[in-house]
């Protein structure tokens, strides 16, 4: 067994992990990153398409290029990186009699088992793809079914083609990007089938990855069966009309390969083991205005907290989280917090509370598609702020700031709660 001590241990070396670690390093803390794969970068490394970095670097980069912008800065920092290392234990100890709060992270690598003690931990494990079982698609269990992300890794990193006659279930961004990638690689992509009446991915991906390639998108269609004994032979698809399956209109889409892009879930098994409270609406930890979870000294950022659309937003959130960790290590805490809750037509709001004495960045997702929408931020009967939005939809995260101007007046009201809704 090997041992080490750091101020902060970061779980995960993707965009969120690197960006938060760099910020904490810049502020003088001793930081370690633990990464499962053999190099830093996370899922960006298999995203060889462009479209990353427009906000963060003001230029259009591929995933690996974006990752390099961060990882190139690591050697010049004092950050210790453990790659090929899987966390196998995480305990978060509360403050006790004469004992400070502390974190113990244990990981395995080819060198052995290592135990790190630290004051703080940043959760940056990212998210995982939902699979066929999660969305409960009935039928046979033949070869040829892949999550879109696994297919992306096989094609872009291992140089392996999953198959030639492809249907994609779900219109998440990875599915859309993979529709184009498979078409480029010589496969025939017959359709993308989406259960909802609108695409789950970003509009630009629908245009660039489907429309430009003439790939049909079946909206409001449910996959009712996967067929084929050995290898996938077809799927049975049924339109939804007036909220019910129109069984008589069901049809088959022949294919030998199915890619699933049916949503992402924050990967919080380690957080749960450590007793961190999760928000069922996001699948990520409940965090306060400082991105700290229910466990003292345990922070979260990036897709492990809530699934983002853009890595640029992940990096911004992670950098901010790095600064919050630094304040906490210095002993600075907000004097009070105002709770935030998701109101009408809002799926979730992150973080779960705000600091009325400073500027807060708030992220939320709408439950509805709406033109000319208005975000209404209320504290009881008082409307704190209204924000006009040309267009809101579930697939696009909305971010805005709430500062002392809006929140200052609430600092003196006991139990003040803010509710954000889309009336």
């Amino acid at each position, binding site marked *: 067994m090997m041992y080490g001590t750091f101020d902060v241990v970061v779980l995960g070396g993707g965009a969120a992990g690197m960006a938060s670690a760099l910020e904490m390093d810049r502020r003088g803390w001793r930081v370690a990153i633990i990464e499962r794969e053999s190099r830093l970068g996370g899922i960006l490394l298999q995203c060889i398409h462009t479209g990353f970095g427009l906000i963060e670097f003001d230029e259009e980069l591929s995933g690996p290029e974006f990752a390099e912008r961060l990882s190139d800065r690591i050697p010049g920092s004092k950050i210790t990186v453990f790659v090929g290392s899987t966390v196998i234990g995480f305990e978060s100890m509360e403050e006790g009699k004469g004992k400070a709060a502390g974190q113990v992270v244990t990981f395995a*690598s080819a060198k052995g088992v290592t135990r790190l003690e630290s004051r703080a931990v940043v959760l940056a494990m990212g998210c995982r793809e939902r699979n066929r079982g999660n969305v409960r698609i*009935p039928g046979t269990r033949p070869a040829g079914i892949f999550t879109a992300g696994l297919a992306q890794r096989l094609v872009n990193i291992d140089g392996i083609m999953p*198959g030639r006659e492809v249907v994609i279930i779900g219109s998440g961004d990875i599915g859309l990007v993979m529709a184009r990638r498979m078409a480029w690689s010589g496969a025939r992509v017959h359709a993308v089938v989406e259960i909802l009446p609108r695409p789950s991915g970003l509009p630009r991906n629908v245009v660039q990855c489907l429309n430009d390639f003439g790939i049909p998108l079946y909206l409001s269609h449910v996959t009712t069966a996967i067929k084929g004994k050995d*290898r996938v032979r077809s799927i049975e698809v049924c339109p939804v009309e007036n909220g019910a399956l129109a069984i008589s209109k069901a049809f088959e889409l022949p294919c030998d390969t199915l890619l699933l892009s049916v949503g992402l879930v924050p990967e919080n*098994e380690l957080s749960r083991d450590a007793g961190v409270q999760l928000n069922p609406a996001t699948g990520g930890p409940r965090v306060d205005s400082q991105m700290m979870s229910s466990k003292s000294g345990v922070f979260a950022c990036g897709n492990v907290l809530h699934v983002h659309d853009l890595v640029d937003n992940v990096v911004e959130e992670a950098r901010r989280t790095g600064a919050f960790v630094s304040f906490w290590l210095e002993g600075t805490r907000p004097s009070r917090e105002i709770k935030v809750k998701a109101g009408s037509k809002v799926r979730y709001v992150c973080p779960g509370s705000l600091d009325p004495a400073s500027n807060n960045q708030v992220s939320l997702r709408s439950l509805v598609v709406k033109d000319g929408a208005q975000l209404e931020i209320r504290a009881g009967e008082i409307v704190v702020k209204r924000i006009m939005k040309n267009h809101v939809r579930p697939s696009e995260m909305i971010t805005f700031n709430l500062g002392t101007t809006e929140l200052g007046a609430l600092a003196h009201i006991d139990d003040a709660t803010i509710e954000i809704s889309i009336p």
Partner: protein
Amino acid sequence: MGERVFDVAIIGAGVSGANIARHLSSYELDVILLEGEEDISFGVSKANSGIVHGGFHHDGRYLKSRLEVRGAAMFDRLADELGFPFQRCGIIAVALHPDDFGALGQLYERGRANGAPGIEMCSRERMLELEPKLTPETVGGLYAPCGGIVEPYRFVFSLVESAIKNGLELRTNWRLESASREGASWRLCASTGSSVLASRIVNAAGLRADEVSQLFSAEDFTIKGRKGQYWLLDRLTRSKPSRVVFPVPSAISKGVLVVPTVEGTVLLGPTATELDDKDDAATTRDELEYILRSARTLIPSISETDVIATFSGTRPVLGEDFMIQRSGLVPGLVQVAGIQSPGLTASPAIGEYVTGLLAQDGLDLVPKQDWRPLLDRAPHARDLSFEELDQLIEINPAWGSIVCRCERVSEAEIVNAIRSGHHTLDGIKFYTRAQMGRCQGGFCGARILQLIMRETGLAAGEITKRGGNTTVIGGVV
């Protein structure tokens, strides 16, 4: 030198064939186990409830009931010797209405008559104490403390490994195509062209036992498939009971159960549908919804958000009882057919019973002086303490490379599986549990393909999910 003549050829490496093989391996015999699929335990034995039953479901006049009680009692010793995952967690049957007590009383009396140890009728309070997650609608129930859970494929793997260690020959991907008399022996030919000579034959071919019987011109019977569908829940579910939970059973089925698997996940199911096509393994929307509804009447907190996989298994049905007998038409052939529930529970006793039938047929049973019943325990990263894992990594760094994060399976375990002959994705899954967790191979699938290629020299396009035409990959980019 003449061609080797096996004393016994067993057709079918499921849980029956494996137990028969293991039992025979303790005698001075030449035995061969022939499996048509790419790996052992790939048929009926891979997909069932994984339960060691409590001895109260079946009437003692049935052979299956006697073998169930005898087999259930044999599991402790087998698990000690072989180290497969097994736990006597107990079984409860839940009454949701006072009318259910009539049926439960019958089960209780049957259990007592069968000699099921410790069986108990329970009040509502006792039931909720035994299993606090039960519905508040519970009015009482039955408790069979000796019932248990087992990982069926690991059970089969351990039995066959033990038998191989004691001299068993195993052929996989060896599908019987014809059988003919050659002197006092049988010439068995496979579709691949290879053939085997054996004096005595055991037909333990599961769903194909009827076809095998026909190849020998033996008894004419038909095996029907009865499909059962299942949900598999993540090990992190909050709805995991600590005991196997049964409803009060109906005439045709034991009903939808909630099973805490021995590896920590939860199974819901099975349903029971008679099949026209024995190979129809599809799950269906209606039945999957029925399972969820039924399971929730027992444990209301069960959530579909915990589901990580759905699958089906098919039981080979031939009348009410097992058919285990010496063929009346063909000397030297023992039929082991219609081994549906409680086949897994009964299987150790089937091994013993079939050995007895072979002896009646004149097979000479001389115990092996050097029989080695114990299998070395293969460690699993998930079960090891940090210190134990650290020590293994020092010997072999592949222990420190965790390939499957959900079930915590190391590269060393996967390489061991491949080197032991499990080189399909499903074979590795059943042997190591890699790809069996919440991501269902989404993260580790690519690594496992790479490891199979490295260890076997197969090209990506040659790797299969479970043999035959189940090729995983379409080619190279």
